[in-house]
């Protein structure tokens, strides 16, 4: 690494303590964001990507809690734990206090764009008023200056007639327009990093296109870094510089976007790419991934993807792989958490293939009961395989 990254997340673990047990929503996440780049955080629902982004902001709500890890932003520790003299974990002395995070980090250094533009704006205040409040708070501007800045920013994000719309209420805006307002909010606070949590998922495709264009332009203009949380590989391909693929609370692959798509190193990423229908060419047969993601409350042993992995072998059940550098793409490391790669050296090649991975672990059993390991009363569905891509190598 040539220089200190903007944001560094190391071994982040966020857990939810529920009646049913501990949900390890984010389990040992490490990644970094550099100045001016868009980093993707990709995964299906349940992968823990939203929890991860909320953890960075320190906004995990009970019963959730960050139990381990270190988050460094511009050289300052915004989250860090150490073991106190009594063995209890406590906040490290050099970490910023809650109050400091609130006043110095949230909004003015790291801003967020939420997924649901319909719910994220307060229905009883005008759009302009909400925008102005955040600007006043995070940029220390007076009321009039903040208002002028807010109107400028509304125009900037492509809201027609911003002076009038400043006085309007959220319900008078369409979904796409509200999402623009949220983007205006994030940009108006002039942060160095914006966490965008599925910002285009709720939008129509033409509106999504408009928003992506807008983000591209604004990013070029302001040089803001982004963490782009999404499940849509199309969006990733369009705007991300580097990508982290998450599965069940862990990063399974981390690579520059081109390498991720053209030199895929993890079977999950690969399967994901194979299972999506394409807009640019006709795919006759979709290769579906077997089963569903297990619950984070009872993750499978070894590699968490092994029950659904077409390449799984005996060793995958035992060895839990941490993401390691498996390739180098022009100075950029390409990490993957799969024991197939030589970097792991745990005897994958000698290990026998798992019995009936493709057909044996049924959709039904995984999807329904959520317990992937123990024998449940409901046995595997004999016809489970006709629901997926059949048996493949």
């Amino acid at each position: 690494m040539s220089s200190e990254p903007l944001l560094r997340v190391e071994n982040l673990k966020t857990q939810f303590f529920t009646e049913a047990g501990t949900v390890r929503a984010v389990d040992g996440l490490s990644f970094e964001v550099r100045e001016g780049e868009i980093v993707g955080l990709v995964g299906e629902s349940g992968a823990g990507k939203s929890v991860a982004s909320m953890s960075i902001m320190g906004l995990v709500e009970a019963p959730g809690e960050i139990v381990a890890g270190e988050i460094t932003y511009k050289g300052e520790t915004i989250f860090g734990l150490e073991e106190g003299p009594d063995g209890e974990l406590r906040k490290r002395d050099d970490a910023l206090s809650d109050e400091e995070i609130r006043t110095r980090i949230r909004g003015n250094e790291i801003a967020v764009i939420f997924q649901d533009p319909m719910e994220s704006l307060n229905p009883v205040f005008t759009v302009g008023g909400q925008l102005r409040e955040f600007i006043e708070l995070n940029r220390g501007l007076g009321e009039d200056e903040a208002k002028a800045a807010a109107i400028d920013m509304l125009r900037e994000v492509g809201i027609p007639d911003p002076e009038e719309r400043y006085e309007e209420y959220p319900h008078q805006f369409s979904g796409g327009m509200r999402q623009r307002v949220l983007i205006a909010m994030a940009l108006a606070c002039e942060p160095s990093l914006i966490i965008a949590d599925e910002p285009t998922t709720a939008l129509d495709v033409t509106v999504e296109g408009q928003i992506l264009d807008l983000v591209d332009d604004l990013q070029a203009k302001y040089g803001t870094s982004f963490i782009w949380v999404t499940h849509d590989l199309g969006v990733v391909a369009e705007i991300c510089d580097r990508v982290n693929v998450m599965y069940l609370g862990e990063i399974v692959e981390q690579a520059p976007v081109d390498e991720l798509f053209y030199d895929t190193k993890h079977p999950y990423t690969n399967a994901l790419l194979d299972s999506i229908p394409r807009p640019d060419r006709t795919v006759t047969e979709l290769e579906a991934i077997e089963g569903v993601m297990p619950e984070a409350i009872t993750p499978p042993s070894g590699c968490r993807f092994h029950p659904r992995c077409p390449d799984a072998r005996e060793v995958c059940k035992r060895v839990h792989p941490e993401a390691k550098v498996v390739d180098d793409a022009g100075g950029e490391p390409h990490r993957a958490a799969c024991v197939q790669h030589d970097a792991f050296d745990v005897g994958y090649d000698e290990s026998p293939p798992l019995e009936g991975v493709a057909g044996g672990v049924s959709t039904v059993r995984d999807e329904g009961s959520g317990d992937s390991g123990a024998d449940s009363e409901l046995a595997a569905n004999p016809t489970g395989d006709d629901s997926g891509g059949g048996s493949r190598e």
Partner: protein
Amino acid sequence: MKLLKYTIYRLLQAIPVLIGISVITFLLANLGPGDPVSLMLQGQEHSEELVRTIERRYGLDRPLHERYLTYMGGLLQGDFGQSIHHQRPVADLMINRVGPTLLLVLSAYAFALATAIPLGIIAANRRNEPTDHVSRIAALVGVSTPSFWIGIVLILIFAVTLGWLPSSGLIYPWRPPSAYRGIDGHLELYYESVRHLLLPMIALGTLQMATIMRVERTQMIESLQGEYVKLARAYGVPERTILRKHAFNVAQLPIITIVGLNLSTAIGGAVLVETVFNINGMGRLFVNAISTNDYQLVMGITMMLGFLFVIGVIITDISYAYVDPRVTYGERE
């Protein structure tokens, strides 16, 4: 402008309701097995002729719909008919009684809102802590206790046992001090009127307070979980501002509705509280009218109370529209 439009729209909507109220009242008073004349003559020996005479005097010999139209015609001119028992126009009887009832109901609401909203917010903010539990139990007791019994207990404690506050009647602040014996000057008048109002106000307001507190608590809890609160947190808005501004404003919307709808319970409660505290309001007038079978007066009072309720609901609806922009501006999509 939009608000004015909405107000007129709401007033127009109230017309069929008011007509409906008059129909119901009229039917109940005239169609029941106890017809007005025999109700009037209850306990008295009466001849056919007497009945005829009375019927003619009050126009009761005409068909029902004609009588209704006559009654409605009178209503439109502010004529509620003639009280049979008092031999005076119903409107005259009511005019002096509306004030005390309004004073009682409005002060009860003021008391309820002033206590319930802060308590509800505190309970929501300290969810599942002792403060929350105590206030929830208090609210539960509040919604489970009859207002007239609270009045009785208050009288027993503060008037009978401690002797601090008067147990009956009201002093009306809008009358001149000279109207009351032993009161000199406006200051004392206000002081006395507050002293008299205190117990009935609490008796009538407790139920409202408890109801509003319960709603406030749930609404605040829900509002605090809203995405917009999450967004405000993410932009570094202090927790206090979130509580007092962002979450609070949204949580108030259902409270306004509750206040409007509960007005009917409050008006009913006023009848009981007025009886307990010997307050000469609409409620006692109503009870007297009922016990003397004064059906014209009963009709008048029912119309009047229904009318007050409708007006109250319209006022709350308009304030709702004022607070919630979604009502007056239609959804754009």
